[in-house]
């Protein structure tokens, strides 16, 4: 038997949470991160496929031990039902961005549209002076698009954090020994 080995390299980890849809639950989760001294890189909250249940996706940077610890702490919160650490190679991750670009003359407009096409992004609003591009893709794709459009002058931008879901048959509802163990720690009826 060997002491549990953890990856000590700092990298991005994605946590997927199922929580009860009650007031204050998002702040409860977010506050846990800040009080433990961890920075949230991105957080997305929205419905799940079950009514009364919200799914929160959080990206943090840290080492494996730290991520396991924060996941364990999250699981202790009463409204938090499941926490799963998603592996990069067994999950798919996407972001959405709405980018309003200055495009006053025709050539600029053409170029922006071309770039949008290359990135399979859509133009969702046009005015005399601006184009609004809606893009969907993984983190690096969105980052690259923003960089390219930056040359034309971005008037404003709204972007989501990372959404993630596991590949294949695995889901957040899977039972595991780890999950059972965590339930003991939270509360036992």
């Amino acid at each position, binding site marked *: *038997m060997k002491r549990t080995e953890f990856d000590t390299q700092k990298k991005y980890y994605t946590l997927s949470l199922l929580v009860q849809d009650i007031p*204050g639950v998002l702040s409860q989760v977010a506050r846990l991160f800040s009080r433990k001294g961890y920075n949230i890189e991105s957080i997305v909250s929205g419905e799940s496929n079950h009514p009364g249940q919200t799914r929160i996706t959080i990206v943090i940077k840290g080492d494996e031990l730290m991520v396991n610890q924060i996941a*364990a702490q999250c699981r202790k919160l009463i409204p938090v039902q499941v926490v799963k650490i998603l592996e990069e190679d067994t999950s798919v991750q996407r972001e959405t961005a709405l980018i309003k670009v200055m495009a006053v003359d025709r050539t600029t407009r053409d170029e922006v549209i071309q770039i949008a096409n290359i990135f399979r992004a859509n133009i969702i609003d046009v005015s005399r002076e601006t184009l609004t591009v809606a893009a969907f893709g993984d983190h690096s794709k969105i980052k690259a698009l923003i960089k390219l459009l930056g040359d034309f002058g971005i008037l404003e931008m709204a972007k989501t954090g990372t959404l993630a879901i596991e590949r294949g048959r695995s889901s957040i509802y899977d039972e595991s020994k780890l999950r059972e163990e965590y339930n*003991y*720690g939270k509360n*036992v*009826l």
Partner: protein
Amino acid sequence: MKVRATQAILECLLEQDVDTVFGYPGGTILNLYDELYHYQDKIKHILTAHEQGASHAADGYARSTGKVGVCFATSGPGATNLTTGIATAYMDSSPVVFITCNVSEELLGRDSFQEVDITGIAMPITKATYLVRDPQTIPDVMRQAFAVAATGRPGPVLIDFLKNVTALNVMIDYEFIPWTENRNTDSIRELAVSHGLKAPEPDLNDIETLVELIAQAEKPLLICGGGVVRGRAHEQFREFAEKMDAPVAITVMGGGGFPGAHPLTTGMIGMHGTQASNVACNTCDLLIAVGCRFSDRVALKPTTFAQQAKIVHIDIDRSEIDKNVRTDHHIIGSAKRVLAELNQRLPQYDRTEWKEKILSLLEDQQIDEQEKLTPSQVLDTIEQAVPDGSIVATDVGQHQMWSIQHFHFQYPGQLLTSGGFGTMGFGLGAAIGAKVGNPDKVVIHTTGDGCFRMNCHELATVQYYNLPIITVVFNNGTLGMVRQWQHLIYQEHYSQTTLDRAPDFVKLAEAYGLKGKRVTNRQEMKEAMEEALTCGCGYVIDCIIDMDEMVRPMVPGGAHITDFLLK
């Protein structure tokens, strides 16, 4: 049945067998106190001098009786005054339900008089907080709150009722269900299902693995942590230790989890741990920690803590595993259940050689016979005077360490101390709670002059409810523990630690209608103890000791566990 909302709140307390609450009224909680007026014969309310005292009293009541403590306070400053008490209970996993009332719905969020977001403030220091805006949810919330506070790893819960929810004309549907049954009501079941909660049955494979590890080990060491005390697993732990025939180190929070006078005890471990405990920790080949979270006062330097040993962690809380110290094996479950399963599978071991090697490091307690009063003389006199099994509540600092090192605690709840949060001023409140919950036991409150000054106004509570608590002040005219650090680490820069100031604690006791005596030698101490035990009222013994007395041994924070700064 239709009842008033406030009635439902108090009936829900009765469901949980609550007969005592601690608290302090105010504007927004008036409705609940009005209802309490009708329940005087069923629920005893202890009115303290300050909400903080009430919070510590409810905590001390919970720790000493094993029941859930209950504490009331009003909104705003009343609620914020509870926070130190809530955090103290949270750090030491003590089950307390705090009930506050907030302003009415129409005033909420308008910075109204005495309004504060107490559920927000208390979020990081409670297991759960509830803001009740709908009176119909009162029974569910109350039952949930008690279930959450008392089960799993216990801890405080806060319920904040809006004032309009408690209005006397609000009627709700309510049916009395005793707590043994209400854990089966739909809402609690629903909670259990939605959170995937299961009864804590330890994994038998994990237990088998540990049995094998134990069979391979030659030099095992056990650590008795606070989980043994909270889980009332002292009998199982004792059987375990005796079967293992291994030395047992006890953490501050573990005091009472294993008999302090047992031949296997090596005493406290960590910063002020004994030579025996700390050396054992550094030389054992298997370390089994039960209900202990390897805090920085035990595992001073986590990276080198018992690095030569296999570390096994038994805890009810999964998030404690690998949090501070990396472990080789863990078992999740209540100490009681895990140890009971384990004991069934363990043979009787004989480890005379290892055991004797470690236990020979234990030094006999030296009671110095100096002329002037010393801490060990004070403690020895107390120990000889009080009946066996008396409860000891401490504050925080040198006297706390001296008390815990000196007394041999025998059962869970005998030692009440703020081990995790280190709350100065905890002791008197906790002693009040303990005396109320255990009227037949002698309750000793040991404190320092710094700590006592923080919450000594609770002497008014001691006097009013006629609680014969014996307060022993280790009066060295300084913040002793801080001074000790300044002496050892800060080149004797005694910055703001000298307390050469009022009050005269004997006169203070008298001002509160109690008795007191100043003692300067062992004989006077002995006489004072005799008087204190027979006078039938609260008694303050002001023990004048030297300000340069130190807590020994000492390992500085962050150092390796055997790098003693003081022997």
